[in-house]
């Protein structure tokens, strides 16, 4: 019987697959509040929407996500351009968000990825409910956001 509990390559492979298992939820009601049931053996390949989520629990972390845009709205100023004409009026935008409880443990200058949103640097760690975690978006050099969750400003 001991062989059942022996760690075999098959078991390791299975556990690895298990780690990346993703939950499938079947939507049962849409009007007047979304409702659904968890489908344990659901096929995640068939699902069209693969989305991020967060449990609605009391210890979730409040966040402020801040993005920046270029200070000048023109790529290259010519000799006779007056730079005052090309100052971008909107260079900063912040969004309030709710995140995992684990975000509370981050320290200043840690760089994390919020899945499907992008990379962020911790500008101020979580202090309390009135001083939430402040995250600055790190540009990734792409012209488009990594998913449908685009920010308020142009993606950099």
């Amino acid at each position: 019987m001991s062989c059942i509990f022996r760690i075999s390559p098959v078991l390791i492979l299975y556990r690895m697959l298990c780690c990346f298992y993703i939950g499938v939820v079947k939507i049962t009601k849409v009007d007047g509040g979304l409702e659904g049931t968890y489908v344990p053996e659901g096929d995640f390949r068939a699902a069209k929407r693969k989305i991020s989520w967060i449990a609605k629990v009391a210890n979730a972390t409040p966040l402020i996500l801040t993005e920046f845009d270029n200070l000048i709205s023109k790529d290259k100023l010519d000799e006779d351009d007056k730079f005052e004409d090309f100052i971008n009026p909107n260079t900063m935008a912040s969004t309030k968000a709710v995140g995992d409880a684990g975000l509370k443990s981050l320290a200043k200058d840690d760089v994390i990825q919020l899945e499907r949103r992008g990379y962020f640097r911790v500008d101020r760690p979580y202090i309390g409910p009135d001083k939430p975690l402040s995250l600055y978006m790190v540009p990734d050099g792409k012209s488009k956001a990594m998913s449908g969750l685009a920010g308020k400003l142009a993606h950099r």
Partner: protein
Amino acid sequence: MSLVGMMVRFGSRKYCNPFVILTTRSLFLFYSNLLSTLARFPTVRGVVRRGIDIKALREFMYSQGASRRVVNMVWNTFWAENKKEIDKKAKRFMAIDGQQHAVLNISNCPSEEDHAYIETQVHPKDPSLGTRLIRTSNKVLLEAVDVEGIEVGEDIVLLRWGAYIAFSSSLFCLAYFEFRRC
């Protein structure tokens, strides 16, 4: 004991869009108008505040060589280089917009009082960074953008939600399979 020093002299790099060409006067104008944060200035301090990795910055400067030519560049390559570096150790978390979200009730999941959680890798490509716990509950928040036009009967996938309900039965099957193998 001898100190070995290395001096690298760089030519100036002009990036499109920031104001390398601007004068002290115009810099002062920016500075007095937009002082609220320095993160938008294309200075070393500014880009560090925006999340550049020092190692990536150094690598990038070395990759440019020690030429004294003045070159024009776009920022994208700089940030793309940085992304490669930070991606290796950036821990993964999830966050949902504070205002524009929808609440999904999942009927067959434990409620908040049960303190249910799942364990997942901090970094999907690097198991050495360890695991983290994610709270689960029968009420989950989803982005409003993601649930637009959702229909009854549709299957959606919640990323990283482990198949913990299915696990016990699957493990049993697996144990049987293992037993047969031996």
